């Protein structure tokens, strides 16, 4: 999935992208980058991953004051109401259901950026 996301992001003009195998190394990267003064600006995470799942990475970020406001998109094959509710309650910025095409991902990304910029401006 990471290759697909990276290909779509590259096509959309996002070239400074880093990957992690699952939630645990991702969370460590997010914390390290923040501590180093070079924080990530956006997280796109699969829900189903071996090791730490995407929903748990989201919850970990929201529980960390330094990562709390980081825009976070979940990408998943879980499209049922209970999953959407769980992700919304956990504070996900938006949610893209697989399978999707590049335009859908682009639309969601732009929506999150707009929302995030707006909340910062306010």
């Amino acid at each position, binding site marked *: 999935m990471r290759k697909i996301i990276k290909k779509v992001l590259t096509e959309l003009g996002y070239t400074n992208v880093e990957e992690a195998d699952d939630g645990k190394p991702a969370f460590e990267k997010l914390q390290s980058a923040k501590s180093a003064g070079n924080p990530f600006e956006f997280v796109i995470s699969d829900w*189903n991953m071996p090791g730490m799942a995407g929903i748990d990475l989201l919850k970990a970020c929201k529980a960390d004051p330094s990562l709390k406001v980081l825009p976070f998109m979940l990408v998943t094959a879980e499209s049922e109401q209970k999953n959407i509710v769980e992700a919304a309650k956990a504070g996900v910025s938006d949610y893209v259901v697989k399978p999707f*095409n590049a335009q859908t991902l682009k639309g969601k990304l732009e929506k999150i950026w707009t929302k995030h910029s707006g909340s910062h401006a306010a």
Partner: protein
Amino acid sequence: MGAENLQPVNPLLDKRFVSAFVDGVIKTTSLMASTQVVVGKPTVETQFQAKGDVAGMVGMVFGQMKGTMSISFSKEAIFQIVENMLGEKNTEINASVTDAVGEMTNQIYGTAKTTLNQMGYAFEMAIPSVIQGTFTISKHHSGATLVIPFNLSNGSTFFVDITVIM
């Protein structure tokens, strides 16, 4: 030979059950790999057998009903899909190819599961396994395997096998 093993309540006889998987394949290959497929004629087999060089498999459980969904690809079929999906040309089954098989299995099952659960089933999501080579699964039950072929424009075929154990 497999028909006598099917019970009236077997979901493989429910057109909506089967359509959920067919629609999952069409949607996944179209959206994620810009690949159009032509659905072939389904058949029933009494024993699951992988038909290609690499397969993704996921278990399905709902109450007393247990089953598996697998997708078997020939090299020609999966190489075309991966090329369309990632822009990569492959000549051997490597990690990139097996990742794509796992991801497609995950998405097709996820799409079908959502439709099925709206119909009243309660399947859970599971992480798929990817298997290479020729293999068979022996069973000691009254299950059957529905095999649905999907044809690609390069003349290759991949197969979705749905096995249900009642």
